């Protein structure tokens, strides 16, 4: 006399569990080989379970309705003889593995080497953030705009008393225009919620500024940037970038951003297609402000021109909304009176 246990096999190419729907046998029953003992429902199919042993049922180890992991014993059967081969220690498929504690690798053979070691933490953090960003379907719209008026305004501000020792740049005006334009396009200051399938609009604007530092790309953000005056915004950007470049940005300033601005123009390029900061619905990209021939009232003039682009999360924002938003920002930079009108 031998007692054999039947363990739940993987019934469908890689399943990890199944529900025992009902028993077809009782304790004390004498059963034959391949006799149906239970109905089992996996994620793929409701099937009849045939007994691998002939003998008498001594224990039913699982209640009907229970979800049983693959590899767990479900029934004990006392077999008449030991002619039946011993059950395999490892089930086919994803059953419980035999212990391989003694199978330790003595040495790990050298694999292919990249030059040097693993990338520094900030690079890996950037890689992780950009991979995460790629999960959002994103699109980009562009506009090229004459910002001569803004440049004139900046020149005046730089010479004014309040802005003494405060750097005020096209980025400052672009940031002010961005946070102001959000009042007309609240959808760009949102997060797409995959679970609920809805766009969650943020009540305040935490404006992220992409900063290139010795420690890699950082995107610290200015809390409630929409409530700040141009002066306070300029001051905040100055502090934020200085802190980031010094590598002293604290965690609160690195989390909770709702929309981002990136200034690739400082590197001399005309513009770019930025990728979203994960969780945000829009990022504004500012190109270099350059003097170019520009048509003004039917004549070609030398004007200060910049290319702006907005990448947006196309789940919560559509092309028209993004284009209208970018057009408004561009209009504010083209004519600061428009910005004033929206304040």
């Amino acid at each position: 006399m031998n007692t054999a246990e039947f363990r739940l096999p993987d019934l469908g190419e890689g399943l990890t569990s199944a529900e025992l729907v009902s028993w077809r046998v009782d304790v004390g029953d004498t059963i034959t080989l391949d006799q149906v003992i239970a109905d089992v429902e996996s994620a793929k199919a409701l099937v009849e379970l045939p007994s691998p042993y002939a003998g008498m049922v001594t224990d039913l180890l699982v209640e009907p309705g229970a979800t049983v992991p693959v590899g767990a014993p479900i029934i004990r059967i006392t077999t008449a003889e030991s002619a039946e081969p011993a059950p395999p220690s490892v089930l086919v498929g994803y059953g419980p593995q035999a212990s391989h504690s003694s199978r330790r690798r003595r040495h790990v053979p050298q694999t292919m080497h990249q030059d040097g070691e693993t990338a520094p933490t900030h690079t890996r953090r950037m890689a992780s953030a950009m991979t995460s960003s790629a999960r959002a379907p994103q699109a980009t719209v562009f506009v090229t705009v004459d910002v001569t008026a803004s440049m004139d305004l900046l020149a005046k501000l730089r010479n004014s008393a309040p802005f003494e020792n405060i750097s005020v740049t096209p980025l400052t005006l672009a940031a002010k225009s961005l946070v102001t334009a959000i009042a007309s396009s609240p959808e760009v200051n949102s997060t797409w919620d995959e679970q609920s399938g809805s766009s969650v609009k943020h009540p305040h604007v935490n404006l992220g500024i992409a900063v290139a530092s010795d420690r890699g790309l950082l995107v610290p953000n200015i809390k409630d940037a929409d409530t700040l005056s141009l002066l306070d915004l300029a001051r905040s950007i100055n502090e934020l970038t200085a802190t980031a470049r010094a590598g002293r940005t604290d965690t609160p300033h690195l989390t909770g951003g709702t929309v981002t601005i990136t200034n690739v123009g400082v590197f001399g390029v005309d513009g770019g297609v930025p990728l979203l900061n994960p969780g945000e619905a829009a990022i504004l990209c500012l190109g270099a402000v350059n003097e170019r021939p520009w048509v003004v009232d039917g004549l070609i003039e030398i004007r200060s021109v910049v290319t702006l682009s907005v990448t947006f999360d196309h789940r919560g924002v559509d092309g028209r909304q993004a284009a209208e938003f970018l057009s408004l920002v561009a209009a504010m930079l083209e004519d600061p009176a428009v910005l004033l009108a929206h304040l």
Partner: protein
Amino acid sequence: MIDNLDYPVQLLQPDGARVCRTEYDRLIADLGPTEYISLYRDMVISRRIDTAAVALQRQGEIGLWAPLLGQEAAQVGSARALKPDDFAFVSYREHAVAYCRGVPPEVLTHMWRGCSHSAWDPNQFNVTNPAIVVGSQGLHATGYALGAHLDGAEIATIAYFGDGATSQGDIAEALGFAASFRAGVVFFCQNNQWAISEPVSLQSRTPISHRADGYGIPSFRVDGNDVLAVLAVTRAALAHAREGSGPTFIEAITCRMGPHTTSDDPSRYRSDTDMAEWRRRDPITRMRAFLERRGILDETADAEISTAAEDVAARLRHATLETPDPPPSTLFEHVYTGPHPLIEHEREQHREYLASFDDQEAMS
């Protein structure tokens, strides 16, 4: 050559009554009681192999099985029409074809247990191992048939596939190529009504056999649950191939009465009522009724067949449980017929990898 496509060839009615159709009767005129019993025996044993394998899957001894339940007549009737030198290219469901070609039933589960890439030598039995890629074997069969023709061999090649495979590019290419080059291949389509969960009505707006017309390939439509009709029609098609007259297409109308594979639950896409109709047309019941009508099947023969079926099932079970896991190094065998530098390099790398473990148990 083109048969009346709208009326499938039938020589046995579901109640076992013999239907006379002279052009097909003469193709099986050589059959006597011994042959009738033998066909019945092969069908019964095939079904028993199938149920034994399904049980082994439910007990975790093999990973997967594609049951042939209901298709015994289509497979046995066609396979028994083959001559020893003919070559069969099969899909993953033709267990009865392999059995009829002489493959020992004990090895039929080897591939499904994951302990062998190739359970038998195809050249030994002139039947391939199960092709998992749907329809791929149609191309292999066509190429083999063309090669045999170029060699001057007077043989036929048969490709087995299902109704779903006719929607695959491989089968379309095989039909086009075979027609263009008059390859001696018989395209044997078991229309078992279901391409996994999709009904055949979704696969083709016309009867499947009509598709052959478009390629200029003569076709037959046959009652696939009638072993005598399948045998007759396949013999005609194989003769056509052997004499160098090119390809033919056979649509054997049958039904996969079980799941697509052991991982499938057919109750999710079809009703039991559908199956009741097909159970009435069961190929084994039909042949048994025919034998009983003629008084051919006596108790002794019946008992012998039952015993033989149980014996095959027991052998299959024991062989499956006792099949040892192959050593990992067998992975590199049979990739090429001769030595190959890349394979040798990989074999050596793998050997070094295994040698890096402390425990050398089961590692050779």
